[in-house]
C-alpha cells in the first residue's frame, strides 16, 4: 500500500520537476536573445584577452543583460 503511494508520489514529483525545468528553459529562451545566452567564452586564462570577448556583444544584448 505505502509502496503504491510512494510510486505515485515518485511519478508526480518527477513530472513536476521535469515540467518546471522545461517551462523555465522555454521562458529563459524567450526572454533573452540567443546571442546573449551563448556569449560565454572558454576558460579562465583567456580572460586576459577579454577585449575580444567583449566585442562579441552587440549594444542590444548589453541592454537586456
Amino acid at each position, binding site marked *: 500500500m505505502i509502496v503504491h503511494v510512494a510510486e505515485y508520489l515518485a511519478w508526480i514529483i518527477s513530472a513536476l*520537476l521535469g515540467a518546471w*525545468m522545461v517551462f523555465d528553459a522555454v521562458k529563459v529562451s524567450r526572454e533573452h536573445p*540567443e546571442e546573449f545566452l*551563448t556569449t*560565454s567564452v572558454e576558460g579562465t586564462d583567456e580572460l586576459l*584577452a577579454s577585449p575580444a570577448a567583449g566585442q562579441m556583444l552587440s549594444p542590444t544584448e548589453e541592454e537586456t*543583460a
Partner: protein
Amino acid sequence: MTSVASGSATPEEVRAAADAHAARKHLALKKVLGPAHIWGLGVGIVLVGEYMGWNFSVQKGGMFGALIAAWVVGVLYTCVAMIDSEVTSTVAAAGGQYTQAKHMIGPLMAFNVGLFLVLEYTMLEAADANVVSYLTSTIANHLGYTGSVNQYAFIILAIMILAFLNYRGVLMTLSINLVITAIAAIAIVVLFVATQGWSPDAQLHFHGLVSSHDNALPYGWFGVLAAFQFGMWYYLGIEGTCQAAEECRSAARSIPLGTMTGIITLLMAAVLTWYVCAGTLPWQYLGVSITPLFDTALVNAGGAVATLLAVGTVFATFASANGCINDASRAWFSMGRDNYLPAWFGAIHPRYRTPFRAILFLVPVAIAFAILPVLLNKPELLATVITFSILSALLMYSFMVPNMFRFRKLWPIGVLHRGYTHPLHPLPAITLAVIAALVLFATFLGYGTTLLTLVIFYLLASIWFVVFRYKYVRRGQQFTMPWPRPKGY
C-alpha cells in the same frame, strides 16, 4: 580574435582579469568551487564503484584477480590523475579533456573525446539510476512488502531530482556531493573497523575464502587480465574533475589538489573494500552481487553498520549520478559552444549560470539507458551498460598519452604557467599506454562484440563530423587559450 597574449599568466593576473571581466555584461559559468568540491566531484562519481561494480572482477579472475586488478588499474589511474592535473591546471575550461584535445591534437580528436566524455558519464549515470531503483525495491522487500515495485518510477525520479539540482546551480550541487560522498567514504572505514580488519582471523575468513587456487586464481593469469576490465570500476570517473575547471575560483590550485587527494582516497577505499568483502563473502557470490559492501555488512556486522552501509550505498549512487550529470552536461555544452554540436546547447542560464540546455537534453538520454535493463527484464544488462561506459573512458585514456607528449613538446616547461607539473615524464604517459592497452585487451576477452561495435560507432560519428559538421566550426577561434604559437607549427 587575433590577440596573442603573453605566454604565461599568473593566478593573480587571472583573478584581476576575472574581476574586470565580471563588470562586463556577458554570461559565464559561475566561478565558485574550491578544492573540496573538486574532491567531492571526483570521488563522488567513482565511489559507487566500490559499492557496486568492482566485484564483477571477482567473477572474471577470482579473489586475487580482483586485488591485482585494483593495484594495476590503480597505477593506471594514478597516471591519469597526474597527467590531468598538469594539463587541466593550465587548460581551465568546462570541456576538460575535450578542450585539451582541441588545443593539443586537433578538432576531430576533440569531437571524439567530447563524445567519450558524454557517453562515459551518461552511461554511468544510467547504471547509477538502476541501482537506486534496485535499492528501493530491496528496502521495500526488507520492510516486508512482497509485491513488485515499479522500478521506472524510481529510476526516473532519481534522474529528475539530480537534473533539477544541477539545473539550479553548481555550488549547491557539488556541496551536496561533497557531504554525501564523505559519508559514503567514512562508511567503508567504519565497516573495516566493525569487522576488526586489523586482525584478519577475528571476523574475516581469508583462510577458507581466499586460500586455494579455486577461489583466489580460478582462471589463472588470463583471469587476472580479464579482471582488469571491471577493476576499472574502482576508479572510473576520477578524471571528471577536469570538467569543473571553468567553475573553480582557482583552477590551477583546485584541480591538482582535488584530483590528487581524490585518487589517494580511492586507492585506499579500493583495497579496504576488497579486504572486507573478500574476507566475508564466497567468491561465487561476490562475483555477481549487486551491492557487495552492503551484503558484507549484513553478513558480517548487521545492525547499525548494515544500515550505515545501506545509506552509504544510496549516497554513493546519488553522488555518482549527480557528478555524472554535471560532467556530461559540461562536455555537451562545451561542444555546443564551439559549434561541434548545435550552437543551441552552448547556452548558459542567465540566473543560475549553468549549461541548462545541455543538462535538460541529456535527461531523456540517461533515462533511456537506465530503463533498458528493466524494460528487457535483464538485470545482467547492468554489466553491459558498465562496459559501454568503461570503453568510452578507456578510449579517452588512450588519447591522453599523445596528448601529454604533445603538451610538453608544443609548450615546453617554462613557456606556460602550469599550476602543477607532474614528475617523471614520460614514465606516467608510457605506463598509461601499456596498462590501457592491457585493459582494452581484457575488454575484448569479455565483451568483444561490444568493443567492436562501439569503435564502429565512433568511426561513423567521426566521418559524420568531418563530412557534415566541421563546416560550422570557426577555425582559429576555437583555439581559446592565450598561449604562444605551439613549437614546431
